[in-house]
């Protein structure tokens, strides 16, 4: 850690920023359900800023040396590989699951019972 006897940044400022972003995110998520692209963009933006604040300050990465960064930097690449390796299985092969979540289907793929009260059969 590249600092001396104190933590090297204002804990209060980071905490208030996280608090405000969480409040904004909850309000955004609860009251702005449509359009979906706007809902998701706002949520992802808040989530990323919060994640970066925790990662850079609370986890001290802003003050760490190259050796710690080198431990963590390969993981986003691996994350991308995991996601993009699996994505075609359900997204791009034209066999998307065509029954709503919450339905029970039999071996032939026919819907036999609606278990989801929000989507009764």
């Amino acid at each position, binding site marked *: 850690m590249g600092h001396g006897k104190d933590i090297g940044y204002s804990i209060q400022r980071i905490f208030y920023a996280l608090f405000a972003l969480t409040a904004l995110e909850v309000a955004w*998520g609860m009251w702005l359900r449509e359009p979906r692209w706007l809902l998701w963009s706002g949520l992802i933006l808040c989530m990323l800023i919060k*994640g970066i604040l*925790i990662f850079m300050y609370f986890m001290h990465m802003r003050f760490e040396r190259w050796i710690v960064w080198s431990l963590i930097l390969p993981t986003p690449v691996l994350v991308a590989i995991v996601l993009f390796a699996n994505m075609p299985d359900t997204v791009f092969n034209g066999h*998307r*699951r065509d029954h709503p979540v919450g339905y029970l289907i039999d071996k032939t793929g026919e819907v036999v019972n609606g278990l989801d009260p929000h989507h009764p059969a």
Partner: protein
Amino acid sequence: MSSATAIPSYDPALDAPKPHHAIYDYDSGPPVHRGKFAIWLFLATEIMFFTGLIGTYIVLRMGSTTWPDPADRLAVNITAFNTFLLIVSSATMVKGVEAALQGNRQGLIRWLGLTVLIGASFVSIQVYEYFELIAHHNLPNVDIFWSTFYAMTGFHGIHVTAGVIWNLVILIAAMRGKIPQQKYMLVELAGLYWHFVDLVWVLLFTVVYLM
């Protein structure tokens, strides 16, 4: 007692390091504290673990023509409160690390104790949420929404529980005076894990509860 049986006085030179050649006078370890190196290596594996869970969720959700609105199925209010709790606990953890760094034992005990308390509250609220969901027959085998929900939040809950236990062990050691200033790294390592757990929850809360 005769003077012949007296124990000779201790000579520190006996335990002093032997002189050696300068070429061996280096540290073969990484240029960072070994504990920190180890915890970051561990956290890298944890990132992959949660990537597997969250990645599976994203793939399944994108592969479905429809997906239930989480707001219809989950108690977002209570979970939002839980999210605030975890963020507060991260701040108290940082204060605890700062106190350890300054050799402030009372401060360390106070802030770490608060962190343990808030962490335990988070787990308790999550258990309450599970009981409520199960009481309404929302079990993991009902549909893919619930199975992914329980997998992600359940494993995260286990991690929070482990973090609470870890912090509790450090707290007990601090209360017994076993964490002097020069051992502040013990607190920092526990703190890194705790912040990681908080970071994962920031992602989970957004992806599972709000999106």
